[in-house]
């Protein structure tokens, strides 16, 4: 989980062009939107693309994004859970 959160920070910085940020600037529990990292609605769409590109995960519905993209930790937990579900199903 720690390694996944570190990887996510690097991927988010690259995907969202957060050139003035470093992974260590982003706390695992910092809010990603508004306060905290200050992401916006276009960034939310880019996070959905990131999940698809890097983890082959599609969000089941738009509402899910509000909880999944709350912080780095919630994203990492979602990816871990979905990968476990996929592994169990195969």
């Amino acid at each position, binding site marked *: 989980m720690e390694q996944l959160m570190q990887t996510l920070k690097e991927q988010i910085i690259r995907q969202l062009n957060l050139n003035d940020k470093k992974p260590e600037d982003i706390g695992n529990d910092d809010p990603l939107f508004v306060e905290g990292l200050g992401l916006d609605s*276009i960034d939310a769409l*880019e996070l959905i*693309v990131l999940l*698809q*590109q890097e983890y082959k995960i599609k969000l089941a519905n738009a509402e899910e994004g509000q909880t999944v993209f709350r912080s780095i930790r919630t994203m990492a937990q979602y990816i871990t859970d979905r990968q476990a579900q996929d592994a169990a199903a195969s």
Partner: protein
Amino acid sequence: MSAPEIYITADCVVRDNKVISNGSLLYAQEGAAVTEFLEGFYRHLAIDYPKFFKMDRLSKLGLLAAEVLTKNGRQRAYAPENTGIVLTNAQASLDADIRYYASVSNLPSPALFVYTLPNIVIGEISIRHGFKGENAFFVSEQFDPAMLGFYAGELFRTTPTQACMAGWVDVIGEKYEAVMVLLEKEAAPGAKPFTTEQLTKLYATDHGAINANA
């Protein structure tokens, strides 16, 4: 072309890896690629605006030229509704269009898609400075001072516009060019009359002849 009460109170020309404002060299970065040059100038200006890095290169170029105009100009505290923007270029948003098209083969990038209109640069400048006045973006094969002068002049004549950023902002591949002016109704020390001749002269600025001591 333009009404005699309109003046150029600040100007900014960006090309050949140099930024020149009011005849003086503000910044130079020899040998840098477009993105590197623009981000270098952003850091040189010491602006704290993280959204800059998310923008396409057309918006970055326009935003930086506008930043120079507001820093070096003598812009007064006009009401947001009374400050307009009129920009022109030849390549529209083709630079961003090509990048977006390249992303479509994988997963289309929403962040690239939002820049596939040339007038987005006007929106970015307006958001940054809180402008809410008249605005327009025109695409023409080459810099057309007569058209620019006519349209900006009409804005001052027919609307409550008190100040207006106007000019040419163009990016395609490694080619880029910005020639922008701040227009105001009232003269200020050093202001030049807003005429076709002045715009033509500004566009013809020879960057090679201007150095740090200019």
